[in-house]
């Protein structure tokens, strides 16, 4: 058994994901990050909302919680504030995190609560059968944009930077080593972190956009993404359809929320004569 397999709950397999889905790569990367950090599985909680990504927690041999659509961050906030010493990971899809859960996303970033979010961006609502999401690229065909998508998509990186997120990164399922490394770094970061992972849904997005095989779709992801250094050399027009990769924000200056909270109340509790029990 390899190190990371300790974090995989094999008895719950098979997964509900389609053959060739990027979610398996992400599952493995996260487990590998756990293994490299030698974490106790009972000290970890993996929380998810609804969607294909929502099923991921079941397959981790850690504490796991499958919640409601878009609200995983709210449950995670409760867990983290209750038990700040635990590693609280949120797995979320693009619809889950930026549409129905968009409000929680910006507030988690604003608070800088030490929850680690893996935002799987496959540009579509997969589990419900392929409807447009706030991260579906313009002009793409989906079940609810039969004439092409007219809405612009969120730039998650800029959205989170505006909300003063302290760790923002983007990777793709094509680069397992880098993905694992970035996830590991995000776990080591004290405050709120988001790792956006560009993933493929060849079944529900690819099929309607001439990319019905996983290989074609992963190649598409490779073509639209590039390292930040290369991205910065492009003109704004050239940048528009491209997604830079790497760690965009990594700022330890701002205190993590639960540290801030429990430090902030120390003098209040002392003055009130509390016995110092949490």
């Amino acid at each position, binding site marked *: 058994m390899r190190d990371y397999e300790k974090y995989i709950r094999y008895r719950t397999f098979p997964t509900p994901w389609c053959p060739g889905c990027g979610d398996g790569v992400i599952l493995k990367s996260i487990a590998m990050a756990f293994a490299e950090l030698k974490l106790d599985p*009972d000290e970890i909680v993996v929380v998810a909302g609804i969607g294909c990504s929502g099923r991921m927690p079941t397959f981790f041999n850690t504490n796991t919680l499958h919640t409601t659509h878009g609200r995983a961050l709210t449950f995670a906030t409760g867990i983290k504030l209750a038990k700040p010493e635990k590693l609280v990971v949120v797995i979320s899809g693009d619809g889950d995190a930026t549409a129905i859960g968009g409000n929680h996303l910006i507030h988690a970033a604003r608070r800088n609560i030490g929850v680690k979010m893996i935002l799987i961006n496959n540009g579509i609502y997969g589990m419900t059968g392929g409807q447009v999401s706030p991260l579906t690229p313009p002009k793409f065909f989906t079940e609810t944009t039969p004439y092409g998508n007219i809405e612009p998509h969120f730039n998650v990186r800029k959205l989170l930077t505006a909300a003063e997120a302290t760790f923002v990164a983007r990777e793709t399922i094509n680069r397992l080593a880098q993905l694992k490394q970035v996830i590991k770094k995000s776990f080591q970061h004290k405050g709120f972190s988001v790792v956006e992972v560009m993933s493929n849904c060849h079944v529900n997005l690819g099929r309607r956009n001439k990319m019905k095989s996983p290989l074609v779709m992963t190649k598409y992801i490779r073509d639209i993404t590039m390292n930040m250094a290369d991205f910065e050399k492009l003109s704004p027009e050239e940048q528009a359809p491209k997604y830079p990769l790497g760690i965009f924000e990594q700022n330890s200056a701002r205190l993590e929320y639960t540290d801030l*909270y429990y430090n*902030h109340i120390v003098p209040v509790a002392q003055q009130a004569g*509390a016995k110092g029990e949490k």
Partner: protein
Amino acid sequence: MSQRKVLQGNIIVAKAALAAGCDFFAGYPITPSSEIAQYMSKEMPKMERAFIQMEDEIASLGACIGASLAGKKTMTATSGPGFSLMQEHVGMAVMAEVPVVIVNVMRGGPSTGMPTKPAQADMMQARWGTHGDHPIIAVYPAFSEEIFSETVRAFNMAEKYWNPVILLLDEVLGKAHMDVEIPEPGSYEVYWEKTHQIVDLNIYDRKIGENPPRIDFFHGYPIHIDGLEHDAHGWPSFDAKTVDKMQKLRMQKIYQNLDDIIKYKEYFLDDAEVIVFSFGISARSALAAVKTAREQGIKAGLFQALTIWPFPRAALQEKFQKIKKVLTVEMNMGQMKYEVERIAPGDVEKQTLLRANGMPFSPDEVLNAIKEFVK
């Protein structure tokens, strides 16, 4: 100096919650419940307990469920519109069997309705607000001491039965400052299942009717909690037989413990010819009316439901064996009256006094309704 103090109804709820061991509160401001959050934000840091104001009511209940699964005793407080937003998570807490106390200081509705006016508007929302078949406990105090004792009881029942418990309160009583005797710690039960060991994933494995064990994280063996229908291990399962059993497990933990859960008060019912069935602020109008009726020789009595869900069916049916008239008094256009109608035998005459205009019934209005009914 008297032992009695003056406290606002909302503050009595907050004090009782802290006395019951509430160590996590997440909420969102809404009239007329905000004083509860305000008090918690001031007092909980003193006790090194966690308070957070979330971005909305959905997030508030989500955070409470999360904290509850991390071993805390949790509460949130809201009013009708916020309660509507929370409903999906009420279902989540029921499904995953997570204890949480949800306070709803009711106001006029629907929609934003009348934020500063009372209404017994959410009787049915408390029962059927979340989708799907589910058990729920809702309590509804009317007098100051009941506000304390029912809040503590709400926590105890949430812990015992691993279910959300809803505490309904009237705007009038949430906002009013009233005399109250706060009982000494130790003079009331505080239920709290001590630390336990989880050794396998079969956390929902129990016999129908058995109380669930405490299900939470970090007990040495990682577990899975799911909002989807699940089997005894918590894994998602839509197998008809499994679902059938899980539904019954959740229902029966409540319905086989009605003796512990159902609480009501009766006044002058022994020889009564008419039962006034009421709760909350309307029960106070009704009690004043019933007392005056007795002075005038009218044999009226009051059945005041403290547990509103599950409905105190057996207790009320017993009264119907002798008393053949029932007057339901509620500040809405008719909600609990349907429950009364459902359970009252055919030979019981049913009458109602209903209103939802923001004005509580005066005792005289209830008295007139009684007089009209017994005429």
